[in-house]
């Protein structure tokens, strides 16, 4: 069965079927990354507006490349050089973009709920590329694709998430997604980043436990999601970097406590020697490079599904009326 999405604001409202559909539809785009000629004309004539109000190199490049490989044009807004600094409101900024008639808008913003706000005001499909500490849906999708490819399944895995979970939209989206497949979660980090309310994420009945000791948190893990250490956040409250490394760095030795062959994922950019030991980052269990390729595939699939067409009836070239 085919699914279509008016917006992609978050993982929470999606069903497991819709997620499986998205992952399946990403597969042809994984394949295209292996062609010598990676450019398609599929979305030729379409324009994707990239409105990044928060600095981001990787995600922006990933979306830009996705659009470009599908043959779409781009409109690029970068916060630093935008009139936002001159006091123009978010609404006015996106209305200006909208007046140039893009086919969709990909937005990253430091305020949770900003894509929801834009979606309520503009008649345009909106893709959330990360909003505040709320959600980062394409990250969760590419993580899921990576896990499914390596493991063959998403069902019932033990997932350990390491780091500043309180402030992580990546953690939230991943929990929302994997919980729909019955995964069990262990959240690990310093106590002030693990409030009790995190246990309420995901559908009712989701198994989430909070552990402050990394050794305990890694036992039995099938998947380890290492979060970025946002150095800005370490000052809130002040936690010396060395403390963090001592207590929470994912070292090769600590990784051995997890199940053999446990997958190590990281949303990037990694700081080798901080949250992750270089040996682990570059080791066989690390999936970071596949995550990047899969990010491109997932974003291409999403753009294709969201702006690839309109609802007109099929043309006569289909030899089968039902095809």
């Amino acid at each position, binding site marked *: 069965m085919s699914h279509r999405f008016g917006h992609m604001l978050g993982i929470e409202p999606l069903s497991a079927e819709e997620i499986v559909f998205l992952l399946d539809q990403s597969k042809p785009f994984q394949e295209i990354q292996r062609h010598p000629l990676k450019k398609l004309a599929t979305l030729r004539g379409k324009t994707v507006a990239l409105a990044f109000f928060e600095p981001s190199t990787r995600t922006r490049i990933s979306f830009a490349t996705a659009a470009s490989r599908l043959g779409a044009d781009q409109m690029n807004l970068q916060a630093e050089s935008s009139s936002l600094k001159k006091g123009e409101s978010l609404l006015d900024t996106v209305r200006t973009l909208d007046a140039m008639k893009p086919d969709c808008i990909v937005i990253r913003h430091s305020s*949770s*709920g900003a894509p*929801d*706000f834009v979606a309520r005001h503009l008649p345009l499909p909106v893709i959330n590329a990360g*909003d*505040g500490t709320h959600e980062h849906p394409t990250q969760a999708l590419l993580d899921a694709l990576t896990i499914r490819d390596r493991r063959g399944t998403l069902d019932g895995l033990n997932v350990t998430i390491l780091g500043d979970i309180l402030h992580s939209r990546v953690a939230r989206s991943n929990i929302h997604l994997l919980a729909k497949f019955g995964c069990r979660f262990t959240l690990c980090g310093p106590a002030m980043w693990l409030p009790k*309310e995190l246990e*309420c994420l995901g559908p009712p009945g989701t198994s989430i436990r909070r552990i402050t000791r990394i050794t305990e948190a890694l036992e039995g893990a099938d998947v380890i999601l290492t979060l970025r250490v946002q150095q800005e956040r370490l000052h809130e409250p002040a936690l010396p970097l060395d403390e963090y490394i001592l207590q929470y760095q994912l070292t090769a030795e600590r990784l051995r406590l997890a199940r053999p062959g446990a997958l190590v994922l990281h949303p990037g950019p990694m700081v080798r020697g901080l949250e992750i030991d270089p040996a682990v980052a570059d080791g066989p269990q690390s999936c970071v490079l596949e995550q990047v390729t899969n990010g491109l595939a997932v974003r291409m699939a999403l753009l294709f599904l969201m702006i690839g067409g309109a609802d007109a009836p099929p043309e006569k070239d289909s030899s089968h009326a039902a095809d």
Partner: protein
Amino acid sequence: MLLISNGRVLDPASGTDTPRDVLLDGDRIAAVAPPGQLAARAKGAEVFDAANCVVAPGFIDLHCHLREPGGESSETIETGTRAAARGGFTAVCPMPNTRPVNDNASVTRSILERAAAVSDVRVWPIGAASIGSKGEALSEIAAMKQAGIVAVSDDGRPIASAKLLRQVMDYCRALDLPVIDHCEDSSLFAGAVMREGKQSIRLGLRGMPAATESLAVARDVQVGELTNCRLHIAHLSARASLELVRAAKAKNLPVTCEVTPHHFTLTDEDVQYDTRYKMNPPLASREDRDALIAGLADGTVDAIATDHAPHEPALKDVEFDRAPFGVTGFETALALGLELVHAGKLPLMRLVELFTTGPARVLGMKQCIAENEPGDLTIFSTRHDWTFRAEESASKSRNSPFDGRTFRGAPMATIVAGRIAYRR
């Protein structure tokens, strides 16, 4: 002369709940008598038929923002008081966080002059506790009292330090003025936009715990004890704060508190990124809300106050993080209170107290229906079905979380100084 006939008079001061006619002459209540008995005396009077209505003393709103001077794009004294009259209020107490701040007698006088010119409702300003409400030096409180303030507050912000609070309270005790505090611990507040809890985690919005308020309430109660000055806690929202007030009252300390209609109706679960649900203190947990309702009923809470905080649409139509705090409230306050009465959680007489004798007592006044008292009455129906539409509000602003809500019960007429200020 104005005769209010066929109404059910509910007068908390005397404990009366009985059919009575009320005759107003000039700006005073001339007589109160069983129905029909004032016919002779009321010859030539305008008659208002209050059949099927409750006739209560005029409602007093202890806490609102009229934005003038300085914020006229969101509200003016004229539009705000018109909305207040529609809500059944005969007197409102605007907070001093205008531009300029009401921290001296000339600003107080200019507000009162403006009100005299354009408002059909009494305006009793609250003066700033500190200059500019900056929390550094005392403002000209005595001069402002002479000019007409009824209380002192730095609302918008907490009174900055325990030391300043003590100075303000010592000073106000001598002037017999109550000190109203917006209780908030700034370090716990730190950039939060809603209550900390499951919902704030889900939405990825920064939250503040209940202790943000209750810590400051604890501080204020103890400083109050040192000074024996009347302390009134503004817009109390948490169960923990309520318990502190209860304990203070048990020790006979002069502590009072108010609760807003949005706090006794909504919870943090209602927040979804719609900025019409963003205010400070934020919507709290279900337990808090239920505790507030119990406090309204058992007398721990002295008054319902709206904290009517208008913001023009352009200001509120932004991302949740950036929107200013505040919701309007004049026109829905009574109806929301009646929801509690209809649900059996609050007796009607108690609701009327919360709008009349409760706030009056905080200000050191009376508010009752008796001969020679000021001719201020709020006439309302407990049954009239209606829908509140923000678009139709008399306020300049539209930021209400109750837009589209249907109600049972509404203000039918507001009488101020013997004249009809509003009739539905």
